[in-house]
C-alpha cells in the first residue's frame, strides 16, 4: 500500500518533543536551535542509538534565525553528533514539520539514507525584530568602505520621517494580501457559516482531550523534560486548560474583528517548542531489532489562492493523500488535523462532507465524507497543546504513530493548513 521504491519503505520508529509552552514564558531564553537540541537529544536518549548511526537531520522551521538559517546542521553540531551527520532545513510555513518528515521519508525510500532524524521547532519568543529595508539601504554607505561626512548627512536625510524607520512589530501577515491569519480565518468562519458556539465547543473538546491524555500519562513517552537557562525544569505542556468550558470561552472578546467569532480561546496561541521524529528504512529498523511504530504511506501538498480561503488547503490535500494511499476516508481509523483555528478545522470538515464541493473542487461524484468526531484529534490538538509552527507536523506524526502502535488501529490521516494558502496531508499505516 505504501509507496515503494525498490521495495524500500520509510518507517517511524520513535518521536520525542519538548513540552510546548506559551511564548515569552519558560522558554523565552531558548532559541529555536536550543529547543531543537533539546528534542533531538531526548529522542537519541530514548532510541538508544549510537551517534554515528544518525546520517542526517532534516529540520523544519518558520521563524528561522537570519544568520544561522540551517538549524538542522546547527543542532547536529551542538549535539556533537558525528561530523558526517549532515543537515538541511526546510520551510513550508506551518507544514514545515511534516515537510521535514516526508523529505526524510523520500530520501530513505530512494535508498540514499537509512537513519534520519526529522522534526521542527519554532521560538516565537526569539523572533528577530528587523530594521526596515529603508534603514538598511540608507546605512549601506556607512557599512561599506570609508564614509565621508557628507555620507553621514546623506544617511540622516534619508531617515525621515522617523515613523518609517522604527522597527516594526513582527506580524504573521500574508505577504500578498496583508491579512493576518486570524483575519483570514475570521472570513472563513463567516463564509462557511461556522458559529461561535461550534468553535468554542470544538476548542473545549481539544482542551479536555489533551488534558485527559496528559493525566493518563499518554504523552509521557513523547515528551522530554527541558531545563531552562534559569534552571527551571519544564515537564509538561503549558497551555492546556483542563478546567475550561464553553461558558468560560463564551466570555472572551473577538480577537480579529469587532463582530467576529474568533477569540483567543478558539485560536491557537503563539508557542515555543520543538518536536523530533526518528525515521528509518524498514530493513534497517529490523536489522537493529527495532519494531517500527508506523510507515508513511503517502503524502500530499497543495496550494490555493491566499486571497480566497487561505486555510482550506487540507480539504484538497487530505483526499489526495488518501487516494495515493489507496484509501477512503471511512477506511481511516484516526484523523489528526492541525488546529490553527477551530473555525478553520470546522470549515475544512464541512468541505470534506460536501457533495457539491467534491464535484466542483475535487472532480469526484461523492463527498469525501463526514469525519467521525470520535476519531478526530483524539488527544486534542494545537488549540490546547499550542502551535510552535515548525514543530506541529512532527508532533502529529509522533502521536499518531504511537497511537497506531499502541492500539492496533491500522491507519491515520493527517491534515495541516499553512500560510500562503498551502495545505498538507499524510497517511500513516500500522506496521505489523
Amino acid at each position, binding site marked *: 500500500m505504501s509507496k515503494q521504491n525498490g521495495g524500500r519503505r520509510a518507517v517511524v520508529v520513535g518521536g520525542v518533543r519538548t513540552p510546548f509552552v506559551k511564548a515569552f514564558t519558560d522558554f523565552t531564553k531558548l532559541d529555536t536551535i536550543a529547543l531543537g537540541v533539546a528534542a533531538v537529544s531526548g529522542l537519541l536518549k530514548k532510541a538508544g542509538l549510537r551517534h554515528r548511526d544518525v546520517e542526517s537531520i532534516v529540520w523544519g522551521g518558520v521563524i528561522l534565525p537570519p544568520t544561522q538559517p540551517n538549524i538542522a546542521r546547527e543542532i547536529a553540531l551542538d549535539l556533537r553528533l558525528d561530523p558526517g551527520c549532515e543537515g538541511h532545513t526546510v520551510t513550508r510555513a506551518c507544514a514545515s514539520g511534516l515537510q521535514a518528515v516526508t523529505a526524510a521519508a523520500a530520501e530513505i525510500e530512494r535508498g540514499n539514507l537509512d537513519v534520519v532524524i526529522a522534526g521542527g521547532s519554532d521560538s516565537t519568543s526569539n523572533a528577530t525584530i528587523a530594521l526596515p529595508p529603508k534603514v538598511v539601504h540608507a546605512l549601506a554607505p556607512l557599512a561599506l568602505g570609508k564614509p565621508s561626512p557628507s555620507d553621514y548627512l546623506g544617511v540622516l536625510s534619508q531617515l525621515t520621517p522617523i515613523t518609517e524607520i522604527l522597527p516594526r512589530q513582527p506580524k504573521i501577515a500574508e505577504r500578498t494580501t496583508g491579512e493576518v491569519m486570524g483575519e483570514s480565518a475570521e472570513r*472563513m468562519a463567516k463564509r*462557511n457559516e461556522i458559529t461561535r458556539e461550534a468553535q468554542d465547543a470544538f476548542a473545549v473538546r481539544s482542551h479536555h482531550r489533551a488534558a485527559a491524555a496528559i493525566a493518563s500519562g499518554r504523552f509521557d513517552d513523547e515528551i522530554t523534560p527541558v531545563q531552562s537557562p534559569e534552571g527551571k525544569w519544564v515537564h509538561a505542556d503549558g497551555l492546556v486548560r483542563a478546567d475550561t468550558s464553553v461558558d468560560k470561552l463564551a466570555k472572551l472578546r473577538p480577537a480579529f474583528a469587532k463582530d467576529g467569532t474568533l477569540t483567543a480561546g478558539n485560536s491557537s496561541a503563539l508557542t515555543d517548542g520543538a518536536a523530533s521524529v526518528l525515521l528509518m528504512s524498514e530493513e534497517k529498523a529490523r536489522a537493529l531489532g527495532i519494531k517500527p511504530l508506523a510507515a508513511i504511506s503517502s503524502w500530499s501538498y497543495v496550494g490555493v*489562492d491566499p486571497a*480566497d*480561503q487561505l486555510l482550506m488547503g487540507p480539504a484538497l490535500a487530505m483526499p489526495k493523500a488518501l487516494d495515493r494511499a489507496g484509501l477512503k476516508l471511512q477506511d481511516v481509523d484516526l484523523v489528526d488535523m492541525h488546529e490553527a483555528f477551530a473555525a478553520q478545522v470546522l470549515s475544512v470538515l*464541512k468541505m470534506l462532507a460536501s457533495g*457539491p*464541493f467534491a464535484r466542483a473542487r475535487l472532480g469526484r461524484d461523492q463527498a469525501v465524507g463526514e469525519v467521525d468526531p470520535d476519531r478526530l484529534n483524539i488527544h486534542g490538538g494545537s488549540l490546547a497543546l499550542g502551535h510552535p509552527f515548525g514543530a506541529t507536523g512532527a508532533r502529529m506524526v509522533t502521536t499518531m504513530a504511537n497511537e497506531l502502535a499502541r492500539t492496533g488501529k491500522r491507519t491515520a490521516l493527517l491534515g495541516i493548513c499553512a500560510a500562503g494558502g498551502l495545505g498538507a496531508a499524510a497517511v500513516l499505516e500500522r506496521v505489523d
Partner: protein
Amino acid sequence: MSDFLVELGKNPRARALVQSLGLPIPLPQALKRERGPWRERPLADATVAVGATSGAELVPALAECLAAAGANPYLSVPDSLAGSFRGPGETFGRPPRALHALSETAKANALVFDATGVSDVRGLRAVYDFFHPLVTRIAKSGRVVVLGRPTDGAKPETAAAQAALDGFVRSLAKEVGRVGATANLVVVAMGAEGRVGPVLRFLLSARSAFVTGQPVFVGTRVRAIAEPPLVRPLEKKIALVTGAARGIGEATAKSLAAEGAHVVCLDRPADDGPTSQLARSIGGTALGADMADEDAPAKIADALRGLGGVDVVVHNAGITRDRTIARMKPEVWDQVLEINLAAVVRTTAALEPLLRENARIVCLSSIAGIAGNMGQTNYAASKGGIVAFVRATAERLADRGIAVNAVAPGFIETRMTAAIPVAIREVARRLSALGQGGQPEDVAQVITFLASPGAHGITGRTLRVCGGAFIGA
C-alpha cells in the same frame, strides 16, 4: 490624456463643494477598472443582489457563476429557485443569504435579475419591484445585469415583454451612469444556458467598465468549448493585432499578451519604432505592413503561416479623414474605405485558411458607424460596413468553431480624439451615460474577452464600448 472633471471628481472636497454650491459642472464618477491578467475570482467578496421571477430559467447558471467568481449572493427569488445557490455556496464558501438580511446601509456591487420567466406585460412588474428599492443602493462602478430570452418565435405578448427589457436596461444605464455603474441585458438563446457564465463574469467585473446600455446576445451558433479557462485564456494562442503601434491597438496587444497569447504586432513600416518596442516588451513579434497595400494580406499570411496559423485576429488598423461630404475629396473617401473596410475584407479572406479551430476574429467598428456622426460619412460608412461584415463572416465560419464579432468604441481617450478641438471634445466626453471618455484599455478588455474561448456564445455581434453614448444603437 486626462479628463480634468474626472480628476476633480476624485477629490471628495471638490465634489462636495460643487454639489453644495449647485454649480452646473458635471463631475463624472471615476470608473473602477481592473488591470493585469484575469483572476480566478474576479468578484471576490462582491455583494450581489439577485432577483428572479418564478419560471426563471437561468438561476442555476447564475448561482454557479456568482459563487465560482467569489461573489456573495443576496437573494430575492422564489423559494423554489433558491436551492440552486446552496451547492455552489457550499463549494466556494459563498452561502446565499436573503436580500432583506443585507443591512440597510450596505451597498450592492451588482444587481442581477433573471427575467427569463417574464412571459407577459404584467410580469414586468417584478422588474420594477426588484429595481425600484435597490437602484439607489448600487455601489460606485456597480453593475446591473438583466437576463432575458430572444423574442423571435415567441408569442406576441411574450415577445413584447422580453423586448421591453431592452428599453428598460438602456434607460436604467443612463440613470445609474451617474455613479459610474453600468446596466446591460444578456439575451440567452434556448440551449445556450451553459455559455452564459463567462459573459456574466465579464459584464459583472471591473473589466467591462465602459460597456453599458445594450443587449448582449448569447447563442449556440459556434461549437461549445467544454470548461473554458477562467485565467490565462489565451495560453498557446497566436494573435494578430493590426494598428498595434499605439492607442487601442497597443492596449489590445498588451492585454492579449497578458493572457498568454503570442501577439504579432502589425503597423505601418513608418511606425516600426513603437511597434518593435511594443513587441519586445510583450514578447511578441513585430510585423511591418501598410494595410493600404494590396499585397499586405499575403505578407501577413506568410508571417502567420510561419507561426503555424492564427487563433485571434484583431482588425484594429483604421484612419479618419473627417470632412462634410460636400467638401470631401474623392481620394479621401477612397482612402478611408480602403483601409477601414476593404483591407479588412481582403485580409480576412487571405487568413481564412490559416485560422485554427475555435479561432476568434474581432473587428473594430465605431459608434459613428451605428449612430452616424457629422463630418464622418466616409468613416461611418466603413464602420457601418463592419457590422454586417462580421455578421456574414460569422455565419460562414461558425462550423469551424470560429466566432467573429466587432466592438464599436464611442469616445475613447486616444491620440485621435486628443486632436479634436477642445470644446467639441469636452461635449463629446459628456455625451454618454458615464459622462466621460473611455480608455483604450476599456476597449482592449472587451476585445480580449471576445478573443477568449469563453466567448463561445457570442458571434456575429457588435458590442458597443461607448459608456452609453447619448445617441447610439
